[in-house]
């Protein structure tokens, strides 16, 4: 037996194990939600109840009970039970309170984005080369309903924003009408875990947001009903333990939020989205009409070919603010083979050949493809970051999400109307042998959806956060540029899209300027 006894023998073995132990120690704990501390609001907007609602026509259309008087036994009992619950609070409860904070709309927007990402997967081909589409009547049958593509997601975010905003305007109206002070003000011995605010507590705005959000998203993402219910329950529990509310604040908020969301959902039921995904004969006739008109047509390039593009009739869905889509439709794109087309194609070929790391990064940063929150979701994240930065209260936050997402959906509707009107082929179809670093989506090229969505979103964010104008405008341009780097859009798609998005957003801004919040 030969045993080597060089001095470094054991050293080497020990070093190796040490490396493993050390690296094991830095296991990766990655952020699963946006980290921010609950904050004091920069403004309470005590006239918020007078702001103009988007969809509701009467601020008292959904009634809530008159709250029990401050000196009533009913209210005193509520205080006692809230205090009892607070006194038996665990550390987990405290974490949950901080997670939801005093502006839970941030979290609900986050949940919305997460569900959009979760459902943003295109149906795969069947073994026989056909495709099955999700069936809203049978959402749990694969492919699951919905496929949360950008048009679908833009619409879901818009309804969420509108329901939250309209419900909070009503909540503000009732808050100041009934003027019930926050629990910690009614009883100075109550332990209160969130920053204070002078906003009256009945109904609870957090409960309004939870109920409205849960209601809208249960309709948009029917397989997530249980998950949304859990989230809503957790949020309401956090409100009760925060020291701001008694149970009846939450119950009233819940019924108000739910009631308004139901009315808003009636609009959704009849907005035309149901027929946006047309059958093949209609899709073919749209394609042939474009071919007759312009001499070109877009065709899906996948194998097996997807017989119908994504939502050809999304352009027929009811807009929020744009009165006439034809008026915002950009002019006809360059003819295939024209010198302008060749110039754009050459740019793409040149980028594909010599792409820089920076260009690649921009393309990927904005890719927002499958399994992501979509381009509208990307802009919701920016909106959310600015809401936190400017310490907006829930009502003013809802206004940001409502107007931005209405503008984004209108931008999408307008863009889709344009896409299927011109039916312009993508670079991979019109440029022989062309390949890029991004997957080409299943709809025509002109105009770029990213550019249109982004310009509209940037316009609203600039209007609301004027100090951020430079930044958001830069982002919109970068988003438009990113599609060229990715090889899925010509420069003229992006430029026309930016212009179109700005035009669409102007209608939304006109509306916002007249809502009484300025």
């Amino acid at each position, binding site marked *: 037996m030969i045993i080597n006894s060089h001095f470094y023998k054991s050293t*080497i073995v020990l070093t*190796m194990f040490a490396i493993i132990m050390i690296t094991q120690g830095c296991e990766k704990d*990655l952020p699963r939600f946006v980290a921010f501390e609950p904050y004091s609001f920069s403004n309470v907007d005590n006239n918020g109840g007078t702001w103009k609602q988007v969809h509701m026509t009467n601020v008292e259309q959904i009634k809530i009970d008159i709250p029990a008087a401050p000196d009533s036994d009913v209210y005193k009992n509520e205080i006692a039970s809230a205090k009892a619950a607070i006194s038996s609070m665990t550390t987990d409860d405290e974490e949950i309170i901080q997670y939801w904070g005093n502006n839970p709309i941030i979290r609900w927007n986050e949940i919305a984005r997460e569900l959009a990402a979760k459902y943003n997967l295109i149906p795969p081909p069947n073994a026989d080369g056909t495709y099955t589409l999700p069936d809203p009547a049978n959402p749990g049958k694969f492919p699951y309903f919905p496929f949360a593509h950008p048009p679908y997601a833009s619409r879901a975010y818009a309804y969420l924003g509108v329901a939250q905003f309209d419900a909070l305007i009503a909540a503000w109206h009732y808050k100041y009408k009934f003027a019930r002070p926050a629990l910690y003000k009614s009883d100075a011995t109550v332990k209160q875990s969130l920053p204070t605010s002078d906003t009256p507590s009945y109904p609870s705005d957090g409960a309004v947001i939870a109920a409205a959000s849960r209601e809208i998203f249960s309709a948009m993402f029917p397989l997530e009903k249980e998950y949304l219910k859990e989230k809503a329950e957790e949020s309401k529990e956090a409100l009760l333990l925060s020291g701001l509310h008694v149970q009846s604040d939450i119950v009233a908020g819940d019924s108000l939020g739910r009631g308004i969301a139901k009315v808003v959902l009636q609009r959704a039921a009849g907005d035309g989205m149901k027929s946006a995904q047309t059958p093949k004969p209609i899709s073919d006739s749209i394609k042939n009409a474009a071919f007759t008109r312009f001499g070109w047509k877009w065709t899906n390039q996948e194998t097996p070919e997807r017989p119908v593009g994504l939502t050809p009739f999304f352009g027929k869905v009811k807009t929020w603010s744009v009165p006439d889509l034809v008026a915002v439709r950009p002019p006809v794109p360059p003819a295939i083979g024209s010198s302008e087309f060749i110039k754009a194609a050459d740019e793409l070929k040149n980028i594909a050949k010599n792409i820089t790391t920076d260009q690649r990064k921009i393309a*990927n940063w904005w890719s927002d493809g499958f399994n992501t929150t979509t381009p509208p979701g990307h802009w919701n994240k920016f909106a959310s970051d600015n809401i936190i930065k400017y310490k907006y209260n829930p009502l003013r936050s809802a206004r940001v999400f409502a107007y931005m997402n209405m503008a984004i959906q209108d931008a999408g509707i307008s863009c889709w109307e344009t896409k299927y009107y011109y039916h312009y082929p993508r670079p991979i179809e019109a440029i022989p042998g062309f390949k890029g*670093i991004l997957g080409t989506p299943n709809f025509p090229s002109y105009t770029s959806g990213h550019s249109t969505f982004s310009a509209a979103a940037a316009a609203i964010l600039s209007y609301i956060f004027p100090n951020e104008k430079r930044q958001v405008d830069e982002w919109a341009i970068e988003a438009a540029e990113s599609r060229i780097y990715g090889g899925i859009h010509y420069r003229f798609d992006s430029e026309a899209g930016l212009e179109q998005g700005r035009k669409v957003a102007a209608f939304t801004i006109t509306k916002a300027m007249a809502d009484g919040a300025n």
Partner: protein
Amino acid sequence: MKNKIIIFLVLTALFQTAILKAQTPSDALMMEKNELCIALIYQNDKWDEYWEGTLLRDNQNIGVLTRNTFMPMLAYGVTKKFNIITSLPYVETEASRGQMVGASGLQDFGIFIKYQPYELKKESGSLSTFISGGFSLPVSPYLSDYMPFSLGLGTQEFSLRGIIKYEHKSGIYLRGSYAYLHRTTTEAERDYYYADGSHYTTTMDVPSASTADLALGCWLLNKSIQLEAGYIQQSAFSGDDIRRQNAGQPTNKMDMTSGNARLRYFPNLIKGLSFMAGYSEVFSGRNIGKSTIISGGITYQFILKKAQS
């Protein structure tokens, strides 16, 4: 003759499928003191089916995915029981169909040490154990979050491997090894991604993994030919599944089992030269391509300066 049997460069690990690291020294041979070995290895990895989670499927928008690896290696015997090995693969990927462009470039620089703490020699045969440890890291700004075209996982990897080998005097041997591959994180070019829920960061957790391998081989014709058949199992300790019709991402749990056959030939005419050829196939897997890999290589080793006796 014994001196001729130097490093047996790693087809085992080279073997690893498509998206995995190109190599780990998992053989059971040592070089002499001051001996240098230069190797060039080529590997051609192809698949036309892959596991989307646990579902084996094809994708006509990928067709056949080809991954070519050219790997120069350098190994040096510090002592007879302590060797250093380095490698730097160049990788290129391409799909036969679809509109997505492939990638090419330098992948990860790897440095490994191998140490033989124990050897038992008897008339009937010998039993030896080895420990190898290594570290690799990306040397070009390739994007790991570009599956299935990405050049690699874009992570640092620390590996620790234990190897045990019994060789009968007839030249037949049996070798087993187990390795722990600790992987750090990789950077995506987006600050939000979905992997079993939301992640608000550009950082992706690349699951650490273990590999176990078993090989049966023999030496023929006065040790001028080495033949070997092996089985490898690799499993990740964590990670998510690729969801239906989604692309893979570095966070996935990538598992596989595979079998391989290899041949190495030491021509008698030129001392220090050898040729290698290998074939391997993935039998089962998860979030990984069903690869068929052919490889070939040439190695040349020589004494840099005579060891003092």
